[in-house]
């Protein structure tokens, strides 16, 4: 029988994911739980497993497309199963009702209703078999000609954002989508090394057109893109041009250099430019730019590796999306919502260094690499307990301050695709070794992009280790809506004034670490921020205090 598989919720409550690549092809035999696709959600790359043993009948999306959760994703042929039982993975109520019935529906009202609900899967087996494009579920504001074009191109209009007035979808939008989906499928297939994926997962356009071209024959849009090569506009380059004042004004408005507008007309032996010529030239320029942009987004003139520039290329445009976009949105929200204050200090961690040196071989015996991070986490959770507002958030909607009696520490992690913050839950209740091994695992997963969205959520305070790369101080941006984030610098040997038991001062080489604590000044006053830092320093200077925690 035919089994329709809808994109499941691949993270916690994510609404859609970008289809990065198909791991199977139509006609392939798959076994249950075998990954069939890679889908990128807000922050993680997730493999979508097959729910059945069977054959892939139809892959409903192109690589690079955004797939809404709950939309038809893959159609499988399942051998040996009879057509009773739910026909889809995530049955809705109406499907359940219909599943056991013959294809005929009881009353026209019901037929009407079900046709309205689900134009795709209805009407017995015929819809799925023919594989034609069905009208989208959502009301789409596109004229009939555009709807037909979308069917020809196999584009689901409900996935497009219209560029026409008021968001109406135009023929150009459909053509662009048809061309766009083609190119991103190329990129995903060639995305093999981390270096390449570093530029951006879905969108790095790249080489490899030769081997993918053949597989893209069904996407008629490929041709469309190729035919819209940049329009060549012959620009003039004069020193002097005659034109009426209104024409000059028009040129200014259009952003056109009047000396560059080509013309055959002359007045008194001088080249003369008409308003029409200006308009034509401006339009041609714009078309050329659009074509350039389209070509760039389609990946044509981009360098061989996606991160390099082609010869002679001075700029390259890449879609601003995926992880990069998510990071950007989060940063903007944080910086513009919470007034940040950053408190800096330096802490003598000579004893901590010694303690860690002593414990390190013990940890290694258990196969765990002990870093400073677990100590810092313990110190942080201990300090958070003293200053609960640092572990609190503002619930703006309800105008309440939410204090939390749990301590989930986020670890800001640099990965090839950008910043991620895996979360160590209940850090206060875990031992150093457990923290160490869990953290190492999470960081590795984040870097390999196998981390699940659930493991990137729910932190109450974040630590970022900027010391690994260098520098003294940094002003971290809050992992909003959290109220505090601590940046720790590199532990360096520095001269410090040390006072011995007798009150004698001397300068000694000591191990020193810098701390930069950013906090939400709405909730936390400067004094509290400083006191929290002092508390933290107390623990870091005297790590045996952590034993009391």
């Amino acid at each position, binding site marked *: 029988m035919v089994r329709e598989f809808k994109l499941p919720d691949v993270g916690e409550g994510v609404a859609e994911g970008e289809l990065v690549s198909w791991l199977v092809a139509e006609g392939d035999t798959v076994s249950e739980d075998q990954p069939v696709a890679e889908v990128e959600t807000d922050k993680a790359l997730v493999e979508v497993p097959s729910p059945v043993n069977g054959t892939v009948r139809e892959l409903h999306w192109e690589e690079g497309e955004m797939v809404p959760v709950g939309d038809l994703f893959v159609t499988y042929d399942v051998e040996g199963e009879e057509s009773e039982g739910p026909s889809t993975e995530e049955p809705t109520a109406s499907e359940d009702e219909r599943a056991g019935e013959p294809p005929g529906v009881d009353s026209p009202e019901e037929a009407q209703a079900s046709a309205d609900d689900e134009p795709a899967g*209805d*009407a017995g087996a*015929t819809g799925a078999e023919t594989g034609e494009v*069905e009208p989208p579920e959502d009301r789409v504001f596109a004229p009939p000609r555009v709807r037909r074009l979308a069917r020809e191109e196999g584009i689901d209009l409900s996935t497009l954002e219209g560029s026409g007035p008021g968001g109406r979808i135009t023929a150009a939008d459909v053509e662009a989508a048809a061309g766009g989906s083609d190119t991103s499928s190329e990129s995903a297939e060639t995305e093999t090394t981390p270096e390449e994926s570093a530029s951006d997962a879905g969108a790095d356009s790249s080489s490899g057109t030769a081997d993918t071209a053949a597989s893209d024959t069904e996407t008629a849009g490929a041709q469309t893109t190729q035919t819209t090569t940049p329009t060549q506009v012959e620009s003039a380059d004069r020193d002097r041009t005659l034109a009426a004042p209104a024409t000059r004004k028009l040129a200014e408005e259009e952003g056109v250099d009047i000396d560059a507008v080509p013309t055959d007309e002359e007045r008194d032996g001088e080249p003369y430019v008409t308003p029409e010529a200006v308009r034509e030239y401006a339009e041609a320029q714009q078309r050329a730019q659009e074509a350039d942009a389209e070509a760039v987004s389609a990946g044509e003139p981009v360098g061989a590796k996606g991160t390099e520039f082609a010869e002679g290329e001075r700029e390259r445009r890449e879609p601003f999306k995926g992880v990069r976009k998510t990071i950007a949105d989060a940063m903007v929200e944080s910086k513009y919502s919470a007034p940040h204050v950053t408190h800096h200090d330096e802490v003598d961690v000579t004893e901590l260094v010694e303690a860690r040196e002593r414990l390190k071989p013990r940890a290694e015996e258990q196969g765990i690499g002990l870093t400073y991070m677990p100590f810092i986490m313990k110190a942080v959770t201990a300090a958070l307990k003293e200053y609960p507002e640092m572990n609190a958030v503002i619930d703006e909607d309800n105008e309440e301050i939410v204090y939390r009696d749990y301590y989930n520490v986020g670890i800001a992690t640099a990965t090839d695709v950008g910043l991620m913050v895996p979360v160590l839950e209940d850090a206060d209740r875990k031992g150093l070794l457990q923290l160490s091994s869990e953290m190492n695992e999470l960081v590795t997963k984040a870097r390999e992009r196998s981390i699940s969205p659930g493991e990137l959520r729910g932190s109450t305070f974040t630590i970022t280790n900027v010391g690994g790369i260098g520098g003294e101080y940094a002003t971290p941006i809050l992992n909003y809506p959290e109220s505090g984030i601590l940046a720790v610098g590199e532990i360096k040997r520095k001269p410090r004034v040390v006072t011995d038991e007798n009150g004698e001062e001397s300068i000694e080489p000591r191990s020193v670490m810098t701390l930069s604590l950013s906090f939400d000044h709405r909730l936390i006053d400067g004094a509290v921020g400083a006191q929290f830092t002092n508390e933290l320093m107390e623990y870091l200077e005297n790590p045996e205090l952590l034993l009391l925690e």
Partner: protein
Amino acid sequence: MVVGDVTTGTDVLVIGAGPAGYVAAIRAGQLDLDVTLVEKDAYGGTCLNDGCIPSKALITATDVAHEAGNAEEMGIHADPAVDLAGMMGWKDDVVDQLTGGVEKLCKANGVNLLEGTATLSDENTVRVSHSGEGQGSETLEFEHAIVATGSRPIEIPGFEYDDEPVIDSTQALALESVPDSMVIVGAGYIGMELAGVYAKLGTDVTVIEMLDSILPGYDDDLKRPVKQRANDLGIEFHFGYAASEWEQQGDGIRVVAEAPDEAAADGGQTEAVEDDPLELDAEKVLVAVGREPVSDTLELENAGVETDDRGFIQTDSQARSNVEHIFAVGDVAGEPMLAHKGSMEGQVAAEVIAGEPSAIDYQAMPAAVFTEPEIGTVGMSESEAEEAGFETVVGKFPFRASGRALTTGESDGFVKIVADDDQGYVLGAQIVGPEASELIAELGLAIELGATLEDVASTVHTHPTLSEAVMEAAENALGHAIHTLNR
């Protein structure tokens, strides 16, 4: 075509030459498919022969007579004499001209025409029996079939159309004399249109309706002017009653109608509250309680084509039945039973068979009722739009504020536009008033193109025309109609 047992073949078999079937056949012919169109009766189907066209002819003709006789206000004093045979003759000429045109168009597009009644033998074979004694039958094999057998008037128990005083809508369009009195069972659009025709011809018309109002399914504000005009024409209504039997009574008949408990209970109208059966004397009784699909004569089961329990063939958005190469279009494929919906489906089916990426994906289905005044609707009503999740904004313009409406002497009714408050997209429109059936087309285009209120309002409309009311209704929704107060 060969008569006898010789089997011939065709790419596309179309069964039924109504507005769904003949359009499918012509479109298939245009797409160079080998197409055979089987019709048992008359080209053009119900629409051309027994429905839309003859009824509109009679509506117009009786309007002319009625208006001429009621134009004292305009200074016209006349008492037109109606020659019913002449009127029917003119109507028949119109029908003949159109059905002849359909036949010519089919031939010109290479459609093979075959007279007879089709029954399916299996999923690729049809038997066509020719009418008339000894005319025999023939067998055709087909690659694809498009079932377009249409619908027929529903009969109610006790009122068989074979009985002389009981008539259906088809017979009502071909009466030889004007009855003195007529009971019409059913106040749907067919009953209401014909009630107007006969009331204007001078018949005493009484309408019985089981539900509590005329034109079930239409918004109350649309019905109001229609009901008012019907009352003015002297049409009598009894709501909450169902016709149960009739008996011969002197020269005429007596129709007995009862109030079913549930109808009486929620009837709303005071007449329906008493339980006494209603006895209505009349010359004729016209039964117009709806139409049912013609899917029982085809032996669809031989081809494995399934129908629902009302007899409709279920189809997908490509007009395909549960059997992949058999399509169904028009009335037989389900509500709404509208000729233009059938024609659209017919085109889609032909195009899908020809391999084109066609689909039934209209945004809005227009409908018209040719009562007086007319009703035209397209897309969503206000409540439907709200149910669909839209924040709505509504604009209304009364025809009494339209200069042109006043000059036609028909100024009842209004134009109402429903739009999405956010972006201003036109979602639906309802018009009751003069030429509502024509005026609605502009708004259908607006909906299909995704036009906004501002687009409609900013389109210059000719003065003085009724279409200005459409523009002003859009302006009213935007809060700046000129000729009516804005809310």
